[in-house]
């Protein structure tokens, strides 16, 4: 991305930095790598677990119910047709620009029973999203500029609209839609308020504000 920054030595640091500026911790646990899309300047911190292997297998085999990671390099050679079909459109997790997934967070695509099969659905996370440490995320979609506090559980198929804020330790129930600019908290989470008009606005231009641009924070992580 920004070429002004000198290329980091990838052999030394705690993070592997890709060409597009993604920073992936060496301690992050990522399964099903081909099914994961990182848009750039995305940070995956230590002990983050990305379950890219939970992906819909196409065409659905009628007998086997185990969801195999068809994109595993070892099995890719043997299961050629499935890997070619899935490489077209299967995305398990997609994460937007300048989004930070803090330590020990699990991202798991949601799944539901459909015609006798447990069918996974993709998990989409937008830009400038901060997901705090120790969260479990099973949302269907998280829009831009969302702030999720530490130790939250986002239930299956929940949708977090833009500029909403999930306070620390909340459990968003499955299927809940958090409206834009809402503050949710509690177990189960309910809307407890609205963010201020200035949420995410950094008038001073220095540092980080909740819900605001995360580029500076991303730059500081190394």
């Amino acid at each position: 991305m920004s070429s002004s920054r000198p290329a980091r030595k990838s052999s030394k640091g705690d993070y592997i930095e890709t060409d597009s500026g993604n920073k992936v911790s060496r301690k992050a646990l990522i399964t099903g790598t081909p099914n994961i899309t990182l848009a750039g300047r995305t940070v995956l911190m230590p002990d983050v677990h990305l379950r890219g292997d939970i992906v819909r297998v196409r065409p659905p085999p009628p007998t086997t119910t185990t969801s195999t990671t068809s994109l595993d390099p070892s099995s890719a050679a043997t299961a050629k047709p499935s890997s070619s079909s899935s490489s077209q459109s299967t995305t398990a997790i997609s994460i937007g620009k300048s989004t930070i997934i803090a330590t020990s967070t699990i991202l798991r695509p949601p799944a539901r029973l459909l015609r006798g099969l447990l069918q996974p659905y993709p998990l989409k996370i937008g830009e400038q999203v901060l997901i705090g440490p120790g969260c479990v995320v099973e949302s269907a979609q998280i829009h831009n500029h969302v702030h999720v506090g530490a130790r939250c559980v986002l239930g299956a198929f929940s949708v977090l609209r833009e500029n909403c804020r999930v306070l620390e330790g909340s459990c968003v129930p499955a299927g809940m839609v958090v409206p834009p600019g809402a503050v949710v908290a509690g177990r189960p989470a309910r809307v407890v308020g609205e963010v201020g008009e200035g949420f995410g606005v950094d008038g001073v231009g220095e540092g980080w504000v909740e819900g605001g641009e995360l580029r500076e924070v991303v730059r500081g992580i190394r």
Partner: protein
Amino acid sequence: MAQNPLPYTYYSCPCVNTSAPVPILAANRKHSREQPPTDTTEFDNEEQTFDSRSPRANLSLVPLEHLLWCTECHQMRCARCVLEEVQCWYCPACLFEVPSSTVRSEGNRCTRSCYNCPICTSPLTINPMEDPRQEDKPEHATGPFIMMCPWCNWSSLDLGIKLEKGTNVTAQLAKIRNGRKAGKIQDAEVTSPTQEQPLSPLAIQHSSIDDAEAEATSPRPDMLSTDHDELFTRLRNFYQQQIVESSEASMFGPSFSSTDGFSSPSAISRLLNIYTGKKTKRTKPVPMREALSPSEGLHIHSPADDTDSLTCLSTTPWPDTTTTAQRALQPGDHAPPFTSDLWPIATLLRTKRSKRCRACRTLLARPEARMNYRWRIRTLALNHMPKLTLLPLATTTTSSGGMPTLGPDLGTPAHIAQRASLSAPLRTGQTHTYLLTTANPLEDVLSVTLATPPTTPGRVGTRVTILCPQFSVGKNSDVWDEALGAQPAAASKRRSGMPSGMPTVGEDGAQARVAEAGKVWASGRNWTSVVVEVVPGMLPEDASEEEADLEIAVFVRIEYETDAAGEEKAVAATAKEKREEAFWCVLGVGTIQSTFA
């Protein structure tokens, strides 16, 4: 109070003083150890100091991002001093925008299929009842459907409700509900749906009581209709008739306030009478009477109902009774004592509101009409007022001359240690040093004067010293200026007399450097940090939790020179205008450790 984690900064909106100028003074007098303010700054001689503990002050303390700015009055505007206008109504669950005419007729609840669990308030999902494991299922599920709570496993089967369709739940539920009521009222013999599906012994017990109730009152069919809606319509009809009767008697009486309005022929003829000036003899209004018979809406409370519910309550286990919150959420006057009778709650609509200044009606914030988080107009206080942050000096880590800020909690060991030190209790008598950073969002150089009472009001009496109360803050220059000449400008601005490489205020740097009075600690492009020394006072033995929380009230006065044509930058105005603003803000520091614990 502790909505935000420590440290926090609240700004005191001046509107707290406009309605009542005295109460802060009165509240201060209550404290026995209250000392008269002896600060040398000129402001404290003029006015009283701000007490963040006074019950009134609490109303005005707002975080900066919640404050708006009135460009006409040049003042901050909090939620108390803005006028709100509803822009649109929407359902938070389906994000469907509801026209205001529908809200007026149908009420402020979603009329589509959005329902909340009556037990735990989480949104209900509508699922087909058939086994989802069936493989040879059609693409679209066919009924019956049930409503299920993904959180507490409540389902509409607890009420014996199955829906035919998965859509338009509100109409179906209303039909089921009305059907049940009608069934109960008209024919006591017909078993109620709750009895068809005996799910718990409680349900049977309760429905049998319902039946007993119905039997007891069956000889008087009029009295059976204890339903709220029906009672209401009868009473309404009765009172309307009463109003008409009494208004017919009196010429200028309450007829105009009656529901007939001005459009009815009788009202018009009466109006004409008034204007033609033919004074007729005013007759005395017939006094209105109250409802006398059940057909008029009279409902006589029978003590048997009470004893029945009492016996039922005494035999019901505690978890099966409803909580106050659950009863309060139920629509209408439906407040059942048992969880088995709770109905799903239609989702309450939310609003998007535009905000105007209460004094001059200037539009301060106006959201976009569509379902997103965008604003057409938004004048924020954080773009017009300095941002103050208080951070412990020891834990402040600034990266090569950057503003001391607290980053997000990312859960790394460094972050955990930082958060722990932030919430560490303060010790009585020890000097704690903090860094108070003032950041400038304006494009003019600010000269800032800070003032604080030497001891915090109240019984604890914490000593607070701002080492450098007068300083200037650089202007918030263009981003390009920063990019092109950030390094030399920042280095030259540093007035602390330290080598340019020094200002990394780390764990090692803090000990090496001693804060001096009258000198700023560090400064950057548009921010300046000064050191604040805090010596927590002694907590009394019977101190409340609130007293243990240390808050510092700081009076901030800023002066700056700006272009006379303030907002119109295109016009090259050479005339400078001097502006001055002053406000109180409250900095949350931490919790004082009790020596008696």
